[in-house]
């Protein structure tokens, strides 16, 4: 016992030491940070005296956002002119090159940030689960996950390098300004990146050595550290875009005022952080699920199919779990945007970029549609789920009506002749679907239906045995039915009350959806305790269509991420840094919707082609094990699928 305790203490100490070393760069730079990046200003007492003495010399500026006074500690934002000095270029838009580099870096970056979080969750599940076989399965899955992310990790670094070079060579004036303000942050960023790499490699290569007992817990804690570092990295990078959208910590001319925390902690920083973390997770889950789907479709044996079916299911569940809170984070971000600058909000939602939000709505709908489709297909791998399959068509109807309301644009695309025939911009019938009230109803109906599909999936092969099962079923049916009624009623009610009351209706609507999510899944869980199994889940017996649905889901994620990133970036219009540094290049205009869509599609395509390459690399290393296992099946050596 004593020895055990001793070991525990040692390991905790070792862990602490490791963390201390990893966080050392931050600690050492904190001093520099507090004093505004190295140039230590005179201590306050001295400053007060100094102020009296030479007032003329110490120039003060007013923070554009925090409205505090500070001593000017940097040069004003450069006033660029159109020319090769400020905007060196090739024969086409530099912006597009930058867009490409940025987007690819972001895709890979969010993938490698998300996957370790999944690893952490799955490894933890493996450690705490009582079932030995299951524990092993989880552990292997987590290992599979991290293996995929390792190659992607180096690609992320390479793409980051490419991104910096693109910035330096094509936008020297802007990048110079940005790096002058974020100098200390950028150094910390680099150091954190080193720390991340170190932890990641120890984590990955130490997997086998640290698989027993206490060492396993240390290994698991390391994944926590890895994720803390990764999250900090992302938050630092977010501070740059936050600064570009809603600058703070500088005066009106863009001069740095000595407080780096103000520069980092801008109006939109935290909403962006939350939104991005959730978005990364959903995206990462989608990509891993797509990997599993790809392996499933190219699998040659039933074992492989079973494994990848299961892996796809887990990854998909994780993706959807993070997809559900994502709209709320987005809502918060939008609120903060409106609070920061009303016209920025209107440009996004009602003005110039409103069309892109219609596309976004469509993509969100597709996400939920494919999620539901996957769940319905997954009923196919269970015995006894036939009783639910008959009713899917009604779910399709409800889902699709919600979807149609959700995507109906307020202002429709039409030819002038159609406009005349309609007699106005708004359609008297469909126009009513175009406003927020109806759309909230639509999306909540969609989510509630998804919850219902999930409940059906959970019960697929089980028959509740609790004595009150009849009441339970009726209660659940009533609850779902009246939840739909409540959601739709609130959507209609919204038309009859003023706007400021109407916006509040979305909260009870969402609460209704969440009630379904929490209470009904919980009640379902209780009802299924000790339920009669009508047959096991036959992993691998799922239709190929379901796997295409997963791929569709992942692609929709990727596309939507590109789209939202573009919207977020282009809302600055002709500013490099909003209201501080103007974009005077010839490309300060907003792209047409068509061009943007093509560009996003290209980025998505490039990402998937390159990540398929990464997947394929992953299969090269893993080939040996299945070969040995299946040695008795001549001619059936698993080989990576060709033709990607």
């Amino acid at each position: 016992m004593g020895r055990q305790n001793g070991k525990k203490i040692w390991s905790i100490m070792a862990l602490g030491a490791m963390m201390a070393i990893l966080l050392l760069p931050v600690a050492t730079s904190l001093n520099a940070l507090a004093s505004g990046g190295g140039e230590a200003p005179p201590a306050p007492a001295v400053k007060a005296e100094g102020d009296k003495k030479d007032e003329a010399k110490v120039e003060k500026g007013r923070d554009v956002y925090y409205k505090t006074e500070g001593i000017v500690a940097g040069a004003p934002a450069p006033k660029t002119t159109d020319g090769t000095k400020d905007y060196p270029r090739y024969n086409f838009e530099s912006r597009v090159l930058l867009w490409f580099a940025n987007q690819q870096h972001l895709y890979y970056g969010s993938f490698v940030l998300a996957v370790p979080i999944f690893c952490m969750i799955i490894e933890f599940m493996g450690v705490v689960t009582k079932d030995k076989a299951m524990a092993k399965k989880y552990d292997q899955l987590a290992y599979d996950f991290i293996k995929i992310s390792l190659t992607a990790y180096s690609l992320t670094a390479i793409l980051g390098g490419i991104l910096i070079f693109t910035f330096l060579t094509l936008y020297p004036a802007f990048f110079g300004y940005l790096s002058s303000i974020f100098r200390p942050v950028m150094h910390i960023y680099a150091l954190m990146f080193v720390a991340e790499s170190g932890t990641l490699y120890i984590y990955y290569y130490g997997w086998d050595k640290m698989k027993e007992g206490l060492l396993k817990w240390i290994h698991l804690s390391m994944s926590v550290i890895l994720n803390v570092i990764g999250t900090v990295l992302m938050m630092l990078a977010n501070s740059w875009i936050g600064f570009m959208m809603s600058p703070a910590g500088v005066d009106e001319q863009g001069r740095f005022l000595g407080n780096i925390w103000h520069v980092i902690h801008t109006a939109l920083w935290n909403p962006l952080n939350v939104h991005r973390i959730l978005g990364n997770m959903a995206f990462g889950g989608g990509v891993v699920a797509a990997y599993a789907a790809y392996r499933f479709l190219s699998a040659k044996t039933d074992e492989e199919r079973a494994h990848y079916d299961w892996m796809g299911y887990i990854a998909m569940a994780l993706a959807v779990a993070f997809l559900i809170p994502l709209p709320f984070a987005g809502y918060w971000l939008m609120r903060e945007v409106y609070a920061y600058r009303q016209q920025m909000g209107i440009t996004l939602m009602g003005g110039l970029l409103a069309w892109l939000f219609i596309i976004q709505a469509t993509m969100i709908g597709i996400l939920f549609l494919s999620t539901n489709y996957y769940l319905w297909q997954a009923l196919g791998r269970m015995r006894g789920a036939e009783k639910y399959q008959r009713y899917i068509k009604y779910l399709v109807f409800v889902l699709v009506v919600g979807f149609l309301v959700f995507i109906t644009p307020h202002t429709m695309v039409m030819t002038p002749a159609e406009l005349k025939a309609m007699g106005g911009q708004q359609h008297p019938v469909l126009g009513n679907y175009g406003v927020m009230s109806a759309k909230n109803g639509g999306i909540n109906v969609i989510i509630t239906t998804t919850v219902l599909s999930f409940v059906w999936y959970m019960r697929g092969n089980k028959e509740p045995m609790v004595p009150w099962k009849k009441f339970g079923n009726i209660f659940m049916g009533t609850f779902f039915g009246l939840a739909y009624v409540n959601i739709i009623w609130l959507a209609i009610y919204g038309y009859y009350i003023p706007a400021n009351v109407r916006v509040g209706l979305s909260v009870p609507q969402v609460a209704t959806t969440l009630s379904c999510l929490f209470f009904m899944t919980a009640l379902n869980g209780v009802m299924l305790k000790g339920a009669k199994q009508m047959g096991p889940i036959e992993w691998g017996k799922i239709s190929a269509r379901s796997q295409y649905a997963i791929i569709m889901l992942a692609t929709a994620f990727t596309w939507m991420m590109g789209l939202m990133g573009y919207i977020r970036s282009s809302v600055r219009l002709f500013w490099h840094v909003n209201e501080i540094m103007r974009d005077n290049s010839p490309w300060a205009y907003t792209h047409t919707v068509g061009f943007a869509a093509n560009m996003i599609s290209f980025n998505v395509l490039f990402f998937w082609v390159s990540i398929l390459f990464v997947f394929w690399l992953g299969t090269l290393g893993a080939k040996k094990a299945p070969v040995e296992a299946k040695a008795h099946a001549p001619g059936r050596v698993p080989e990576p699928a060709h033709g990607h």
Partner: protein
Amino acid sequence: MKAIMSAAAVVGVIASLLLLGMIFGVVKADTVHLVEGYMPMQMIFELAIFVAGFTGLSYMLNSMGMAIPRFWQGIGFVAFILFYLKSRVYPPIPFSVRAMYGTVTMVAVFMWMSSNEEDWKKFRQPILNVMDAATPKLKLIRTLFLIAIPVALWGFSYQSFVPQGAGADVDEPIELRTVHPAPPASTKVHGKTFVLQTSQNPYRVNPEGKYDQEYSNKLIVEQAMGRLMQANANPWDEKAEGYLKNVREGGEIFFQNCHFCHGDNLNGRGLHAFAFNPIPANFTDPGTIAQLQETFIFWRVSKGGLGLPREGFPWASVMPPWEQHLTTDEIWKVVLFEYWHTGYYPRTWD
């Protein structure tokens, strides 16, 4: 079960006959008319009835041994939706939206047909049969498809090049227009700067002369219940004072200046409205002034089409900058009147 299904089947038959009758003029076209104000829900409700009806119908036919093959059920449903959207909803839905709805319907039918393995097999069997072409008849169909598909494609491409419309003029291209342009942070009218986020309508006042939206909200034309004027809240009453008097003055200005285009019912269908493309804004639509802050309207009225921001160009608005014709006070009063008359409340943040 059987009773419910038969009832549904009867409903389905009646609904379908009624729809066809109305469209082809057998019964009066507005036998079941779309009720103003309830049309969106009515449309969904009608579709739900049809779905229920078809389910019942299919169930009955099935039990009578005359089941419609899955394949034709799917095709038929898509055709029905397209037909419904094209003929039932008036005014006509623009093509882009119908295309969107049609596509989603097809996806829905696919999801329905492929939701379980058995249905999916049944659904694709006819397609596979044609492709395999085992019998002479199927071979003929396959050959016909082989010819028909390229011809159809050619036809569509040809059609898209041919000038459309009654006069066979070439149609103007589709224009993506944004309805709510982003306003500036502040606007300067008659030498005074108004910050859009914080300015208030000086005429939206309670009897004590203080800005009070709650008070004025109580006095507007009731929007939900058939546009009634509140009792003792008639602006045209001689004795009306304060807010109501301001509304009356705003109304006078409106009818001297604005109603020629925006219409005497404020619905954008004034005397000159149809000379413009697009027609003027319809204030009774829940998507226009009801969504906006009062200061936004003030800015739009003062600066007109010319004052719209550059980034959203072209704006396609010919509204004159009214600050050249009206005083600041007059503009505020007109805005007040527009909200009073339509029964909407200006949007407020918090």
